[in-house]
């Protein structure tokens, strides 16, 4: 509830800021910043999709029966968690071409952020799957469901409820982390504000708007996360 109120307040403040900026001389830097905001949104959405896919793949693979698959997952998780996101972005954009793989800035940014967060999400997915009671798998065996059907129809739907809070937090972290994509020459909202600030020297206004924007994104994700959690957990609560 408090979060929702804060979101409304923040949104209002942000709109006031925008209108203030539009009707004053500050409007000179607004278009550039909005273009940056669009880039931030694009990178966020695309890398969030990759993040969720990788979280599931690696989270499931880490407990897989095949040793090779398990080691691949562990390697992926350790490497991407052990090195910095910034290092990974650089590597994708500046070193990969040495291997003959040239990525566009957008692709490098999305890949870097998505793969990095997938490594963190994998642990959340795995933990959530382990939290599903063993009896559920035993019932699946007794009903002769295949391993695949048990995973897809029984375990994952129940694990999703458990993983939503953790994944919501990571998604917010992911949006914040997209601020690094200027390392691969993308002009996102953060870099746009740096550029505009270097032109116009209006640090306080420019950065207030930027902060508000990120804050609104975060509140939006938090709201969506709790709505999802409500929806998924409606029938899972014990008793009535």
């Amino acid at each position, binding site marked *: 509830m408090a979060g929702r109120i804060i979101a409304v307040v923040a949104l209002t403040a942000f709109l006031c800021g925008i209108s203030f900026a539009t009707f004053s001389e500050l409007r000179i830097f607004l278009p550039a910043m909005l273009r940056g905001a669009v880039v931030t949104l694009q990178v966020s959405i695309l890398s969030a999709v990759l993040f969720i896919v990788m979280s599931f793949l690696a989270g499931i693979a880490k407990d897989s029966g095949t040793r090779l698959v398990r080691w691949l997952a562990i390697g992926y998780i350790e490497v991407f968690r052990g090195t910095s996101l*910034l290092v990974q972005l650089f*590597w994708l954009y500046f070193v990969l071409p040495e291997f003959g793989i040239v990525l566009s800035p957008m692709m490098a940014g999305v890949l870097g952020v998505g793969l990095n967060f997938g490594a963190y999400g994998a642990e959340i997915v795995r933990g959530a799957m382990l939290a599903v009671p063993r009896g559920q798998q035993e019932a699946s065996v007794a009903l002769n469901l295949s391993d695949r059907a048990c995973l897809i129809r029984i375990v994952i739907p129940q694990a999703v409820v458990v993983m939503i809070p953790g994944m919501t937090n990571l998604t917010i972290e992911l949006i914040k*982390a997209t601020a*690094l994509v200027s390392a691969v020459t993308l002009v996102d909202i953060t870099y746009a*504000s740096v550029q505009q600030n270097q032109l116009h020297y209006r640090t306080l206004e420019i*950065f207030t708007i930027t902060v508000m924007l990120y*804050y609104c994104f975060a509140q939006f994700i938090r709201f969506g996360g709790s709505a999802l959690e409500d929806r998924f957990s409606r029938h899972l609560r014990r008793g009535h």
Partner: protein
Amino acid sequence: MDWRWDFTFDVVIPRLWEAAGVTVYATVASFLLALVGGLILMLLKTSKNRMVSFAVTEFIELIRATPLLVQIFFLFFLLPEVGITLPPLTSGIIAIALYNSTLCAEVYRAGLQAVPRGQWEAAMALNLSTYRTFRRIIIPQSLPPIVPALGNYLIAIFKETPLLSFVAVGEIMHASKLIGSEYYRFTEAVTIAGVFFLVMSLVSAQLVRLVETYLQRSIQR
């Protein structure tokens, strides 16, 4: 791909080694500041004054919802405008410390909450002074959850220091960027930087785990 070992040993490793000093300095300084900052924030947050605790809670919320990089830029640009000239390394350390102190505050709070209420009451019943209660009863019990969490933040801070390269602080990432643009070769420098981070964080994660089991065992005795 061609990897040049002579270039690696003659140029990359010496320059990264120098820069590693800056990385370590920035990590340690930010961490120590964050430890203290977190304590202050936690005390303010749990303050009896409703206004203070509300303001601090919202401040923490705002800091956490914003990218650290934005905060680094913000301080970097803002401080000179208000007449405070600090080297970028210092303002960067302040930004990292501030960001992480909001996280540390949460760790402290959770750690203190992990001590059962009965322990406070028992200490009160024994008529221990506040200092003794904390020193002998509360802190020893809240350390096992707090210390590993702080250790993980130390590792996280270490991995955040590359952000300082955005404001031209000469840490490892900045050094490898410079090498890249001077020699038009990124492969060696960026890869070595990556390996450096990987090794350091794997080793320190292992250390944190050791400390964790040590603390757990010491409280059970």
